[in-house]
């Protein structure tokens, strides 16, 4: 039996070890604190945010549910601005807003991807919707703290077609038929950094994808199975548009770099998903969206090679996605070095619909499948690569009020990253469109 004094001595020794040093940067703590204080003063000065009515209304519900909300241990008299995991918030109108750094802590560079588990979700109860900023291992924050203007837009318009850059600083939204790119780290009410006009009736803008360092996003104006126009926004402020000829016959697979998209010929999507030709390999071409050193805008570079992933497909699976072409997503390299090559989505037809069933990193014999867990309970859905070695997947369990976001890495147990309310629309960095 262990002697109590000896036990206490060992506990003291352990908790006194250097393992418990935090190595915090005082400059960072001071700057973040100063910014939050200034924002609080500004918030008090300008009064109640425009969407506070909804938030206060939902706060009453949360206060009744969360044991911590009437916590006598709370050290301050002012209510804490918190978006709980339930998606509702306890923000009051004059409470200081969270800063962008509270959601996405400063990284070594602006190019670095946000921490896995960072996300935006929209959750609705009846006609009341809230937008949360999910953080790994912590309570979510309300988007109203950062950008009440964008929160109001998403609460009403939803996240369909939205896209979030890898570093979580740029958010693309469909607005009034057009498309806008906003900086989430800008001041509330800041105008968009890029805006494209609506297309003709029946068309809509979609994000083809981000280059992995969040430097640019390629948008495509689709009308049926045709792209009417491409538009590219580069973070340094550049932008360019390209209107492909009507007979081009090639659709984008994914953003290749700032000025190029990978393209291929689509399969006919007018047939039911289960009856479409299986695509396991496809010819790769590249379309210049702007002039490059060697070629003009609109130049199509046929490589002559085929991406062949057929050996990694199972019966009933295909690479042809909802637009009839493969979907390739550039994933940040875990080492944040060069292009990781991204991952290609694998689909299977279930009850007439295409279901994203796996992802393949690499190509040919060096390709590797990333699958959803089969042993764990719940309903799983794939989302997007997190880096070159792992993917994000969501698990919802019947009767549960939350959905879990996991990192899936080959040969390892799924790692729980964060949670968001069940029945939400989720948007995580790099995802071409919200799901």
């Amino acid at each position: 039996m262990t002697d109590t004094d000896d036990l206490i001595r060992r506990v003291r020794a352990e908790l006194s070890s250097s393992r418990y040093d935090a190595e915090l940067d005082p400059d960072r703590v001071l700057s973040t604190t100063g910014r939050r204080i200034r924002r609080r003063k500004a918030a008090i000065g300008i009064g109640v945010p425009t969407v506070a009515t909804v938030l206060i209304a939902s706060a009453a519900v949360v206060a009744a549910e969360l044991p911590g909300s009437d916590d006598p241990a709370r050290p301050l008299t002012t209510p804490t601005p918190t978006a709980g995991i339930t998606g509702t918030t306890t923000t009051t109108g004059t409470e200081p807003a969270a800063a962008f750094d509270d959601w996405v802590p400063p990284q070594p560079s602006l190019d670095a991807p946000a921490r896995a588990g960072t996300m935006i979700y929209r959750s609705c109860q009846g006609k009341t919707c809230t937008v949360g900023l999910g953080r790994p291992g912590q309570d979510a924050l309300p988007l109203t703290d950062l950008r009440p203007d964008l929160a109001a837009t998403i609460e009403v318009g939803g996240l369909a077609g939205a896209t979030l850059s890898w570093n979580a600083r740029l958010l693309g939204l469909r607005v009034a038929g057009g498309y806008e790119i906003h900086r989430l780290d800008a001041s509330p009410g800041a105008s968009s950094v890029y805006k494209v006009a609506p297309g003709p009736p029946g068309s809509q803008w979609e994000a083809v994808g981000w280059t992995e360092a969040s430097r640019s996003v390629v948008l495509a104006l689709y009308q049926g199975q045709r792209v009417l126009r491409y538009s590219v926004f580069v973070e340094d402020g550049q932008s360019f548009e390209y209107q492909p000829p009507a007979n081009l016959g090639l659709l984008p697979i994914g953003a290749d770099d700032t000025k190029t998209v990978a393209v291929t010929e689509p399969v006919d999507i007018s047939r039911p998903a289960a009856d479409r030709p299986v695509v396991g390999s496809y010819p790769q071409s590249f379309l210049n969206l702007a002039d490059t050193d060697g070629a003009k805008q609109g130049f199509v570079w046929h490589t002559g090679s085929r991406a062949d992933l057929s050996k990694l497909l199972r019966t009933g699976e295909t690479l042809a996605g909802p637009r009839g072409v493969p979907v390739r997503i550039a994933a940040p390299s875990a080492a944040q070095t060069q292009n990781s090559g991204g991952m290609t989505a694998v689909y299977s037809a279930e009850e007439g619909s295409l279901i994203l069933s796996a992802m393949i990193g690499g190509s040919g014999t060096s390709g590797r499948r990333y699958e959803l867990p089969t042993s764990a309970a719940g309903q799983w859905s794939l989302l997007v690569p997190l880096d070159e070695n792992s993917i994000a997947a969501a698990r919802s369990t019947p009767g549960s009020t939350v959905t879990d976001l996991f990192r899936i890495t080959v040969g390892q147990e799924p790692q729980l990253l964060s949670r968001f309310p069940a029945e939400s629309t989720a948007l995580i960095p790099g995802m071409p469109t919200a799901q």
Partner: protein
Amino acid sequence: MDRDPFEEFIRAHLPALGRHAVRLTGDRDEAADLAQETAYRLARAWNRVDKDGNALAYARTVMTRLYLTRRRREQFIGRLLPTLAASTSDLDQIAAADDRLTIRQALSQLTPIQRTVIVLGYLDDLDDHTIADVIRRRPATVRSIRKRAIAALRDGVAEKELSR
């Protein structure tokens, strides 16, 4: 030029606050968030706290209560993240070096309030009345929590040592 007193305080005491946060949470990332939030709360109350003359004690109290509040919320909604265990190779190295791994694992099994009472009592050397004030419980409750914490630690250590 004189530094702002709040800045001076943060520069002088952030290492101690950070250590307190890691001891409570057992996780450096969470500790960094906790320390940041504590600094913000402290800044808001600085004029009052500075006059009282014991800003460090106030900051530790704020931090401890923030930690317990967060943990209570997590208990309600389910823990966001499983307790992160050291990697296998890490465990091997540490176990070979000393018996701290056993203690560490036993500490990780404590409830947040038990761990808090252990940290405040045996690392910060606070008496039961002060601990009771910090965690807003009665001194008798503090004693009860400590007793259960030590029993849990003893069980955890015994279990690990038997399994070796």
